[in-house]
């Protein structure tokens, strides 16, 4: 019965969202202070109500309330309690509830810190977030209500999609939504800047920590999603350029451009228009992602069961929110004042180049993702755009991006000279070049051209980072001590850039150094792959809570004396009639050993088996983790600074 209260709370939350949208914006128009502040309260109430609704749905899952259609479709009496809990966001309706809950959470968080903002800016931010919330709550209640009841209640549930019965799913969507939805905050700030004519460095300072926070969550969410695909889909892939993967990657790319552009806007007052446009664009891409995943316009391994009516609704939301924002931009954007001037060789200039290149990368992914749709819409035939295209096109854009990235993080603000850059960087770059050549000689990859290029690019970033650190400590008396007292923002930047390097190296090396073998093995057989000998020892059936499984035992040995045992499984989930592959993985810093079972072949117990040596594959996610940590450090540096400046800001906000 708690779910009934949850349903009611959902309706109240909609009322709250409507008030949050209307009252503060009206307050701004009429210059009424108390109306402006109302948004802060409404946001917190809305968060509380949605939290209650969410708990109501969770309770229905835990208590096996098969009277709810959504529960009956996505749960089962044999499903363990933790998957019953994560099943709350396992399908469209519940995950959308999580979406609006996260949105309300961000709004509530901004409201708690609204005292450090001018009253009118905070009011517009709250109003815009209320608008977004209203739109999605209407969508939720009208087309995708998870609280709908059925009569009579189902005997038992249809079970959660087995693909999603995994620890990864418990954390992946919440992280991803925290990122996606978090970009609504810089979006709202951008609208506030346009509406109030406040495209100032101060504006960039307000928006920065929120943008960083959203970016950190999205980074982690994407990395976890890739990791989950790696061990759960059973084919050793970690990125397929699938439309749904692209849907989360595009806001990340543009969001990365945004956090860098915000730095320039804050420190130097430049590119304010561009920054505002990036803020709008990033959230637009988040909404586009939501559309692509939930409307069914593109086929994907991860898409939700879809319905065109929902697609039209989200498209209308996307069109009105983003269309409105861009119209506002066209109207108010030209009024921004030019920032400080800078030279052709300067940090500003390189950062601009980089945010442009990141935009190109985003557009490349967008074009590749939507091109088949465009052709189909024009009746020009059906094509598929897959990894061969994206790897080539994206790789092409990455080269100048990484080169400029190395220059940008080292160059001085305002004016620098090529001579100084060359002098300061050449030693490090030379060392990197030698190291790269050496690495390639040792690795002797198949496609040595691309591998060498990728490794050199990664080392170039390391070199430029090292040069940056060196420049900061060389004049100091105690260099080692100086290393530990570097400003937190700078350390964050270095860590994030090194993280990017590690991911880049991981991508290049795992593509060129991995080996795999698709073969037929019966218990007792053994086979060699690289330096490893894989022996298929035995096969055993067992019964899981809601599946039947066959588990193989494989021993892997090397001449060097390494010895590992892997146990890949093939599971059959009875309720959904679905087969699932659980890979057996032996992780390592420089390589993963990965075995997955294919299908049984014949009667002698032989199976088709896929064996992989995944070189440096962990580096992909390690790098993402480092990027996220770098983001957190940079964020904490901002918050510390903000706390110091808070008294002044509070003073400023009392001025008209």
């Amino acid at each position, binding site marked *: 019965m708690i779910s009934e209260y949850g349903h009611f709370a959902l309706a109240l939350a909609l009322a709250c969202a409507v008030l949050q949208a209307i009252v503060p914006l009206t307050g701004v128009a009429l210059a009424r202070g108390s109306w402006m502040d109302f948004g802060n309260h409404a946001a917190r109430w809305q968060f509380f109500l949605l939290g209650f609704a969410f708990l109501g749905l969770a309770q229905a899952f835990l208590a096996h309330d098969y009277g709810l259609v959504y529960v009956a479709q996505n749960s089962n009496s044999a499903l363990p309690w933790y998957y019953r809990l994560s099943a709350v966001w396992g399908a469209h309706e519940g995950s959308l509830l999580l979406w609006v809950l996260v949105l309300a959470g961000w709004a509530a968080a901004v409201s708690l810190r609204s005292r450090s903002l001018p009253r009118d800016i905070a009011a517009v931010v709250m109003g815009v977030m209320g608008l977004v919330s209203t739109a999605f709550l209407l969508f939720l209640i009208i087309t995708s209500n998870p609280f709908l009841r059925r009569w009579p209640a189902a005997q038992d549930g249809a079970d959660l999609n087995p693909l999603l019965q995994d620890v990864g799913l418990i954390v992946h969507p919440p992280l991803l939504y925290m990122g996606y939805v978090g970009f609504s905050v810089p979006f709202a700030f951008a609208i506030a800047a346009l509406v109030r004519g406040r495209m100032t460095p101060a504006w960039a300072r307000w928006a920065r920590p929120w943008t960083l926070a959203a970016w950190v969550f999205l980074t982690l969410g994407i990395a976890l999603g890739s990791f989950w695909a790696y061990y759960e889909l059973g084919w050793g892939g970690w990125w397929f350029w699938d439309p749904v993967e692209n849907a989360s990657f595009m806001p990340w790319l543009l969001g990365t451009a945004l956090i860098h552009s915000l730095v320039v806007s804050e420190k130097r007052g430049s590119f304010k228009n561009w920054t505002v446009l990036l803020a709008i664009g990033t959230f637009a891409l988040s909404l586009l992602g939501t559309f692509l995943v939930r409307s069914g316009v593109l086929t994907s391994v991860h898409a939700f069961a879809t319905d065109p009516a929902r697609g*039209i609704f989200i498209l209308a939301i996307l069109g009105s929110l983003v269309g409105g924002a861009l119209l506002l*931009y*066209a109207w108010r954007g030209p009024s921004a004042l030019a920032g400080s001037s800078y030279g052709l060789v300067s940090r500003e200039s390189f950062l601009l180049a980089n945010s442009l290149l990141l935009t190109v990368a985003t557009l490349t992914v967008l074009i590749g993702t939507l091109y088949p*749709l465009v052709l189909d819409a024009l009746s020009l035939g059906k094509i598929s755009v897959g990894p061969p295209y994206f790897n080539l096109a994206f790789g092409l854009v990455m080269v100048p991006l990484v080169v400029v990235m190395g220059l940008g993080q080292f160059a001085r603000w305002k004016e620098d000279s090529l001579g100084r850059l060359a002098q300061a960087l050449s030693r490090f770059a030379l060392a990197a070049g030698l190291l790269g050549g050496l690495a390639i000689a040792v690795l002797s990859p198949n496609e040595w051209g691309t591998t060498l290029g990728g490794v050199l690019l990664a080392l170039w970033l390391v070199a430029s980072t090292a040069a940056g650190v060196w420049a900061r400590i060389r004049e100091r008396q105690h260099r080692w001590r100086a290393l530990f007292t570097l400003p937190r923002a700078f350390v964050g930047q270095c860590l994030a850039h090194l993280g990017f390097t590690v991911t880049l190296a991981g991508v290049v090396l795992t593509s060129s150094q991995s080996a795999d073998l698709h073969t037929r093995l019966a218990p007792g057989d053994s086979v060699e792959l690289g330096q490893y000998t894989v022996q298929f020892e035995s096969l055993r059936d067992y019964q899981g809570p809601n599946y039947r499984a066959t588990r193989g035992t494989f021993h892997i040995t090397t001449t060097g004396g390494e010895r590992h045992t892997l146990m890949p499984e093939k599971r059959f989930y009875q309720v959904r009639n679905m087969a699932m592959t659980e890979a057996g993985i032996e992780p390592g810093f420089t390589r993963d050993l990965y075995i997955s079972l294919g299908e049984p072949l014949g009667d002698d117990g032989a199976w088709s088996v896929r064996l992989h040596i995944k070189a440096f594959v962990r580096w992909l996610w390690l790098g993402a983790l480092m990027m996220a940590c770098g983001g957190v450090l940079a964020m904490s540096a901002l918050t510390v600074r903000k706390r110091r400046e808070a008294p002044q800001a509070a003073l400023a906000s009392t001025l008209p």
Partner: protein
Amino acid sequence: MRFLVPIAIFAVLVVVLGVGLKLDPRYVPSPLIDKPAPEFSLTTLGEEPKPMTRADLLGRPVVLNVWASWCSACRIEHPLLVSLAQAQGVEIIGLNYKDTRAEALRWLADHGDPYRQSIFDPEGKLGLDLGVYGVPETFVLDGAGVIRHKHVGPLSEDIWASDFAPLLKKLSASDGTGASGG
């Protein structure tokens, strides 16, 4: 002016997405339309198999229906096929796809046999040449053996009335005048 560029690009994007909503991303049009049906040399499905080749499909418009006893979706369209064959006398040739003879015959005995003849294709060779990717699929061949239409998924009354009946009528009209229908 340049401040209007983003909204212009975005407007185009929304229009494309809107059109995209009406399309079915899973439908793959066959490149074989208006191409001659592939050659094959198989046998009929029956207790006494007889050889069957492309030549047996020529001379009149033919509906070629790909089916299998293991295909659950085939059961959905099957009553329609039976009534088309029995009540309207439509000539339907079956293509029994990746099946076993015994199971296929039992399935026909259980559900009725609407087929003038079924081609037995246990290895899916003809299916492959026809670009079959989801059973059931239904083709229309004209008298010259050219593929004129393909439908993927179970047939329904509506689909039959809109896509098949008019085409067959047209084909048999032109066929009656002695032309090859091409």
